[in-house]
């Protein structure tokens, strides 16, 4: 559980904050608020009730604070009291934070007010206390009693951060020309004040620049396994060895926040929209609910299916197409009984391990906490693996009755840390054997091995590749000069995009979303310098490679032509021509005969005729379909026809047929209600051939889309 937090943001809203300075197009206040909103919305996004925030306005028109009796504390007002910030608070703050009409109000006094508020709120409880002051430092400031305030801050454990608009910071490289002498004095005062109480005083520009670097949430891990690392079976052998260990995540994918589904509220009652408590929403939304019903086949029912009650159903599994139901008593009968344990199976050579066998996220295995002997024992095991270059193979059951996993255990020994890394390995069933030809030789159909071939690199190409690869070496190193990958500098783009968009939209409901920060795209392209220095090698590689882009048109049929012969190269088309009965397409062998007819067609009439015949077959298949029996065949026929006619550049033939088919289907002219087929056709993407798919088409993409739309 994270610590409770109490943070006061003191925002300078003085009149001068409403001005733009140093060539910026935003006012000082707007600029400062970028920082403040970012911080506040970050806190909101944690949805923690114990992360409490309060906001104070400095140099406000009015005065409203607990110490207002003291006239030093005038023009300081509490905009929001301590508490968890929710959307209504954000809206309230957004409206309240506006430049005032005064420049009166003392920043140091505001800090005093904030200290008082924090103390009242947190009393002596454990809190992380923090005060953030954002100002342009042009207001009046009294240097009285600074020491005492500093002492108080240190004593109460309050962290102070002061950010100044255009405050000089030689380290970061900000220096304001022609600085007003009053402001310079204030800057000095604030800096010395912050330094005197272990606080920070910096320039706003730097703080805002840092906002782009995503903050990575520190997640406290809980052990996912506590138990014995065993070698041997202690129940049966006295030589079995057991070390108590714990397992934690090493990597675990951080997912973006999940969204829920909504639809626009049905437009009944105009008044409702006006009274909507959320003016930031362009339209009112209502949640989407799921409702689940169950159906079974029943040939006697209309549509062949009937609904059944959830209560009449038993739990079960499919074995092939046989339903196996399992009574409640036997509920766990298919589960393997296991006990939690990390058993060692044996050891393998590090050298011979293929890194791509890693199947999962990584975990670490460390000794049981506060168990010195376990720590010593596990360490000797880790070092033994390391010294003799072994990995261990283990069988891990993380909790009683969980399925066993086979895991790799690898020693990780760093200067400041050591543990075993544990990763799941594939079981026999997890390996799919797809075969691919070798890359360093070509084996011809006749079984000969060839080493010079258009698919193999020539010596020149190989050399050019070698040089290019060498020229593109990355230089990421750790402190000790070892090669590393830049994992620390890479941030999940989707996670941060969504999080920052949500936070931005919460504060700026009507503005378009800003572009995502550049840092998320840091590794989208190679480094420019590297590209420049390796350019000559790349040019050489390109010239040796002689790679040619295939024009989009040529991708289809023409290139496949050569494969349309059996291995022997026999001219089957000649044989087909001799077949007398193939003048007309037969319904039972329609698709092959359709394709063959097209491929042998010498004039457009033959193509028309082939299409006409297949169309007739399709319509009769639909007419004669008992319920949905022929639907998949229809989809296949349409899909094939579509593909072929795109290739033969006759999209109109297909489009005409599909249009007429649609109207017939919807008019129930093909054997009654065929809506389900229409739904299936829509889903199967066998719609009109549009211009993007075929140049010859006269159907626009929009038209094609509308054709398939539900209404």
């Amino acid at each position: 559980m994270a610590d409770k937090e109490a943070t006061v943001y003191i925002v300078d809203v003085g009149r001068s904050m409403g001005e733009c300075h140093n060539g910026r197009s935003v006012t000082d206040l707007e600029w400062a608020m970028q920082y403040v909103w970012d911080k506040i919305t970050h806190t909101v996004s944690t949805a923690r009730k114990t992360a409490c925030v309060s906001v104070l306005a400095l140099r406000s028109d009015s005065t409203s604070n607990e110490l207002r009796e003291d006239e030093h504390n005038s023009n300081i007002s509490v905009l929001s009291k301590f508490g968890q910030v929710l959307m209504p608070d954000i809206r309230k703050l957004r409206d309240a934070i506006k430049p005032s009409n005064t420049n009166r109000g003392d920043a140091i006094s505001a800090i005093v007010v904030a200290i008082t508020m924090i103390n009242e709120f947190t009393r002596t409880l454990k809190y992380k206390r923090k005060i953030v002051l954002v100002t342009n430092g042009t207001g009046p400031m009294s240097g009285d009693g600074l020491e005492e305030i500093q002492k108080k801050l240190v004593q109460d454990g309050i962290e102070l951060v002061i950010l100044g608009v255009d405050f000089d910071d030689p380290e970061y490289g900000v220096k304001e020309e022609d600085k007003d002498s009053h402001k310079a004095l204030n800057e000095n005062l604030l800096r010395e004040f912050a330094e005197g109480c272990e606080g920070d005083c910096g320039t706003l520009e730097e703080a805002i620049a840092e906002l782009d670097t995503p903050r990575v949430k520190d997640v406290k891990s809980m052990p996912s396994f506590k138990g014995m690392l065993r070698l041997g079976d202690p129940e049966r052998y006295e030589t079995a060895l057991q070390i108590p260990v714990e397992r934690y995540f090493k990597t675990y994918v951080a997912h973006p926040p999940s969204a829920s589904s909504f639809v626009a509220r049905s437009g009944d009652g105009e008044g409702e929209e006006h009274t909507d408590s959320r003016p930031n929403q362009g339209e009112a939304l209502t949640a989407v609910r799921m409702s689940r019903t169950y159906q079974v086949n029943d040939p006697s029912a209309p549509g062949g299916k009937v609904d059944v009650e959830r209560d009449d159903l038993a739990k079960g599994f499919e074995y092939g197409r046989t339903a196996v139901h399992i009574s409640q008593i036997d509920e766990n009968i298919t589960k393997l009984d296991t006990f939690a344990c990390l058993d060692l199976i044996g050891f393998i050579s590090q050298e011979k391990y293929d890194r791509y066998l890693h199947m999962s996220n990584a975990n670490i295995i460390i000794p049981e906490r506060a168990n010195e002997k376990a720590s010593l024992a596990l360490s000797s095991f880790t070092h033994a693996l390391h010294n003799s270059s072994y990995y261990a193979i283990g069988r891990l059951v993380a909790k009683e009755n969980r399925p066993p996993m086979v895991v790799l255990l690898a020693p990780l020994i760093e200067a400041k840390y050591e543990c075993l890394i544990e990763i799941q390995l594939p079981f026999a069933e997890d390996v799919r054997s797809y075969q691919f030809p070798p890359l360093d030789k070509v084996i011809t159909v006749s079984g000969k091995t060839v080493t010079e071939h258009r698919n193999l690199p020539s010596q020149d190409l190989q050399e050019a590749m070698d040089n290019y690869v060498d020229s593109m070496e990355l230089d990421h190193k750790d402190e000790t000069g070892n090669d590393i990958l830049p994992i620390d500098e890479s941030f999940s783009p989707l996670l941060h995009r969504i999080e920052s968009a949500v936070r931005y939209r919460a504060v700026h409901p009507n503005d378009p979303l800003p572009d995502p920060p550049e840092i998320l795209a840091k590794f989208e392209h190679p480094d420019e310098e590297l590209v420049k220095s390796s350019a000559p090698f790349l040019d050489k590689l390109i010239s040796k490679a002689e790679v040619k882009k295939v024009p989009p048109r040529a991708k289809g049929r023409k290139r496949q032509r050569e494969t349309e012969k059996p291995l022997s190269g026999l001219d089957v088309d000649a044989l087909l021509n001799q077949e007398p009965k193939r003048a007309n397409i037969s319904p039972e062998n329609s698709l092959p005969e359709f394709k063959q007819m097209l491929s042998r067609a010498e004039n457009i009439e033959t193509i028309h005729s082939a299409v006409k015949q297949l169309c007739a077959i399709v319509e009769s298949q639909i007419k004669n379909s008992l319920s949905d029996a022929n639907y998949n065949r229809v989809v296949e026929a349409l899909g094939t026809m579509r593909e072929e006619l795109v290739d033969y550049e006759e999209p109109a033939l297909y489009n005409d047929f599909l249009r007429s088919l649609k109207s017939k289907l919807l008019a129930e002219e093909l054997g009654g209600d065929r809506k389900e087929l229409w739904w299936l056709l829509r889903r199967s993407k066998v719609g009109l051939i549009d211009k993007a798919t075929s140049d010859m088409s006269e159907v626009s993409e929009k038209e094609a889309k509308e054709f398939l739309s539900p209404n």
Partner: protein
Amino acid sequence: MAEDNYTRDKEEEEVDEEEVDETNYRSVKDAVLFAIDISSSMLTPRPSHDPKKPTEISPASAALKCAYHLMQQRIISNPNDMIGILLYGTKSSKFYDEGGDDNDNVSYPHCYLFTDLDIPSADEVKHLRALAENEEEAQMILQPSEERVSMANVLFCANQIFTSKAPNFLSRRLFLVTDEDNPHADNKSLRSASCVRARDLYDLGVTIELFPISRPDHDFNTSRFYDDIIYKAAPSDGEAPIYLQPDTNTATGKGDGISLLNSLLSNINSRSVPRRSLFTNIPLELGPNFKISVNGYILLKKQEPARSCYVWLGGETPQIAKGVTTQMAEDTARTVEKSEIRKAYKFGGEQISFTTDEQQALRDFGSPIIRIIGFKPLSALPIWANVKHPSFIYPSEEDYVGSTRVFSALQQKLVKDKKLALVWFIPRKNSTPCLAAMVPGDEKVDENEVQKVPPGLWLIPLPFANDVRPSPEYARYSPPDDLVDAMCSVVGQLELPKKVYDAQKYPNPSLQWHYRILQALALDEDVPESPEDKTTPKYRQMDKRAGDYVLAWAELVEEKAQKMFGGTAASTKSTLVKRGPKDQGQQAEDAINHPSKRIKIEGGTSNLDDDVKRSFERGAVAKLTVSMLKEFLTAHGRATAGKKADLVDRVEQFFEEKM
């Protein structure tokens, strides 16, 4: 808890991955029809040369065993895919509602459709098993016909089965098992007819995969007939690399039955799943303005048991109830179309929503790409830098001619210099980008010369900084060298064969058990007593080979611990080696060998295991504290959830099982 979440997330991700090629109208399913030649030579048993295994297996029986094996395997691995068995050259014929010994009135004489092409049912599994295991009744079917079957007819029979039973499948394959390399040597017209029917199958998108078997006196020669029948690749398999070896398998089985069976199994296994791509023709960008095209595949993926479903028992046979989900608006309960749905995020107690366009823009990271950012030695890739299974890529000439040679040069360079490429990787449209390590992989073959791992490049997605968890601190002690050496001696005794991990040797025990039980229930057989679990370590061997070394190490640990942590520590910390308690006078023995016991106990009692055991014997487990019970259960791998009464039950159960 956390882990449950983990699996769910993973599932969602996997579902996402299955959605291959959205533009295709075909359904992503596979149908395999075995066509097995039942000739007298196929039925002649081949004696084993090995006197220890005097089994006789005929080629036909080997083929049936393979088919049975594949059927069982696919029920687990591809529950939506179809399989069928067509015997040809049989005396009797059977095709849907026609059949019998009268071969004149049937459409496909001497073709016997033994198992119709479908997702197999339990009964079909049982029937096939009976046939494969030589049960007499089944053997009636395995009678060769006197007259030669027409291959054209066999092929058209297969055509009709595919056309009607597996319309619109992305992958349809005919597995042809035969030892006859020239069926129509003396009849030219039958031969031409076969070629035409083979072309029909090709145009229908059916791939013929030939599993040729050589006869003891004759090598199978594909050029005599089958080179006219088989095509380089099915047109629907656009993903096949263009110069892929023809889909013929090397002839097997000059030898005895067992080796025939094994090599056939190995060949068929390697073809058991159709090649399905994860992505096709995406650009691999080697540098600005230099791209080649590659296809991606998932070669390693966790196989989970199918989810449970609901079964309706109201009819004659149990039936699976299909769930239909409809989405409705909460206010009016009207049904909602997918396109209307907008996404909103919970924030500050309210919902923050985006328009569909905005939502799309947020998730848009550009077109699919694998872009090389630079190169690094393989050693730069930390062993822990992993979040999921890898993808495999292989070149395609579809978009860029010359891709293969460039890819080959890159792969060879990376292999040679042990390098990896760091890449920016967007696998598909609308998928989230990640940084990945592209590592080279070499080809690997098994003892039958069948490829086990293809050559190519592997993409290993790397964790982002967000995905790396801080490591929990603990008190570390550097182990003295002699202690490490003692452990080295233990470890050195227990190498796995060839010092490698061979996944094929470790079937997933819970997955196998799940389907073993389902099979027994489905076939109404007895449920087996105990599972076969190949992942269980070989305890006896461990004891024999490494036992003495373990004891030596354990003694040294005791000694060092005494020295390093002193007496105070020893009384509260654990022992690491636990000796089997069974055969010794325990108390005394323990006192001598194990002054300290395994688990740390508040209050200083030194022996939790014995205390708990004594309490059990006195019937006083309930008097132990919850923390003692939990410690005890954790140490024995038992769950520690629940109330105290549950813990007490579990501890008592633990001892009862031991009795």
